[in-house]
């Protein structure tokens, strides 16, 4: 079984840096990449009755959009350089990356960071920070 690296990817610049880094490492050790696009979602947020009614439809649309606008261009740009799998998931980003890593038996998680500092990250924490705190496998945070 080949080694698997899990990469958090959302099409942003920092996630592209993380992916570039991951591709380099993967080529060195002949690992495969699982690229996860996590859509931020809390089951405890509040919705109006109309949002509830349309939620299923919206979810389908969001997944389609994520697939078409983020995942497909990515696959095309990689052009078969490394062996990849892609997943689209909903949830808290760091929690979902951790559960995905456990599920697929990833050797490590690679994530870019926004580099926010100061009061915001002190109050709310950052995704990268939360991930490092509770990940069961080694994490690489790409600045």
């Amino acid at each position, binding site marked *: 079984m080949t080694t698997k690296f899990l990469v958090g990817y959302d099409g942003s610049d920092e996630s592209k840096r993380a992916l570039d880094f991951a591709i380099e490492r993967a080529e060195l050790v002949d690992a495969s990449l699982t690229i996860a696009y996590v*859509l931020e*979602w809390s*089951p*405890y*947020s*509040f*919705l*109006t*009755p*109309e*949002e*509830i*009614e*349309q*939620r*299923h*439809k919206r*979810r*389908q649309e*969001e*997944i389609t959009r994520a697939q078409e606008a983020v995942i497909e261009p990515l696959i095309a740009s990689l052009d078969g350089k490394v062996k990849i799998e892609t997943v689209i*998931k*909903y*949830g808290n980003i760091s929690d*979902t990356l951790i*559960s995905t890593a456990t599920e697929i038996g990833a050797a490590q998680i690679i994530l870019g960071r926004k580099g926010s500092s100061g009061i915001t990250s002190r109050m709310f924490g950052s995704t990268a920070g939360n991930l490092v705190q509770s990940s069961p496998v080694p994490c690489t945070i790409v600045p």
Partner: protein
Amino acid sequence: MTVYNKILAASVASAMAVSASAQDAIGEKIDAAFSVFANPFVNFIFAPIPGTSFPWIVIWLVVAATIFSIYFAFVQFRAMRLSISIVKGDYSDPNDAGEVSHFQALATALSGTVGLGNIAGVAVAVSIGGAGATFWMILAGLLGMASKFTECTLGVKYRNEYADGTVSGGPMYYMTKGFAERGLPGGKFLAILFAIFCIFGSLGGGNMFQANQAHQQLTGLFGEFSGIITGVIFAAIVFAVIVGGVKSIASVTEKVVPFMGLMYVGTALIILLMNFSAIPAAFGSIFAGAFTGAGVAGGVIGALIQGFKRAAFSNEAGVGSAAIAHSAVRTKEPITEGLVSLLEPFIDTVVICTMTALVIIITGQLTTDPATGLYILNEGGTIATATGASGVGLTSAAFETAFGWFPVVLTIAVILFAFSTMISWSYYGLKAWTFLFGEGKAKEVTFKVIFCLFVIVGAAIPLGTVIDFSDAAIFAMAVVNIVALYCLMPVVKRELESFMARVKSGEIKKYK
């Protein structure tokens, strides 16, 4: 504000002041015209059982709740732990993340029921029925859990799912589809009747009454001003949300409303703790009042009517509204929505309404004669309160004894609750509307615009008759709905037994 804006605002205000008296005259005319056909209906719905002062509609709701409780072997108590577990997401498949969660469905349905009834209604109940009314209110709340359970399970089971992934559900759909499935006649007739009452209820109790009360609150805070101003502002916000699809307003409200609810309960708890030593005596007076009816108009029956009525008005169990709200949730098992929904009357009535009642009792708002220990009654038969206030004012005065700033918070809470109730009821009304007239963008917008216009009417005009009529319409929904629930309850029983057996055998497992 620029000078130009100031002039504009001033001229608008003066124009409204001039027309205020004309508005009152128009309002009286509408009221008079309306009452001709509304009064017989209202009198019928709220008619007392011959020889008593007991409105038959209250008996209808409580008897139904009792029958459902017995029929489902008190599912509200035996499955409550399971319900909480479902709400927490223990049984939710992680692969379904991103769909509406059980928690969200519960929170949304609750924001439609928690409102004025919990604050003003309870105050009315205890000031007429005394402390004992609280006991009957709690009992009716506990029984009502079974009605909610029944209607919400059916709402999900018989909803319509469309190709684009949206769903429509509610009593109209279980009446037509459920009756057809069981080979029962009259489903279509009941459904149309229900939909008509639902539209009236939505425009009345779910709209005009809320707008009217919100305006009362604002005048309490800022002094008298024309209701048209409140109405137009409210209508504009409601329009932005339901027609314009402005998500931010709704999402802010939906976040603030639960916070307000928690703050209300939290403040009530603090007041109870501050008066810890008075709690046993308060419960003593609740129990004594419930069974002796000492000193209140109508005795035990008076206390019981007030308590039952309040619970029914507040938690809407059996009315069918919650079935519409819950039916949009995607779940493999309809029964899970039923189990989640049974927590609503518990939170709404057994927790929040009871808190209001306890605070009013414990802070000594209901005055008693030191010599006899009995309540001092006003001329109208209501209990004299310490400050002479009634309704929201009584609740406000009770909380004010501990926290001087509370009335301001309460005003904001009442306005927000009114707003979130309007948003919920606009949806219930819309579902009834599309059931009658068909789905379609133009038809939906028509109803939404009508809904917004009624916000202005509700805030602007003193509408005694119309308010009575809309209360009656909401209860008429319950008459039709409960008939359908009796016919379809065996379906729910099969679902419940099958689900419980599979939970027990481990076929339905927890994901966490």
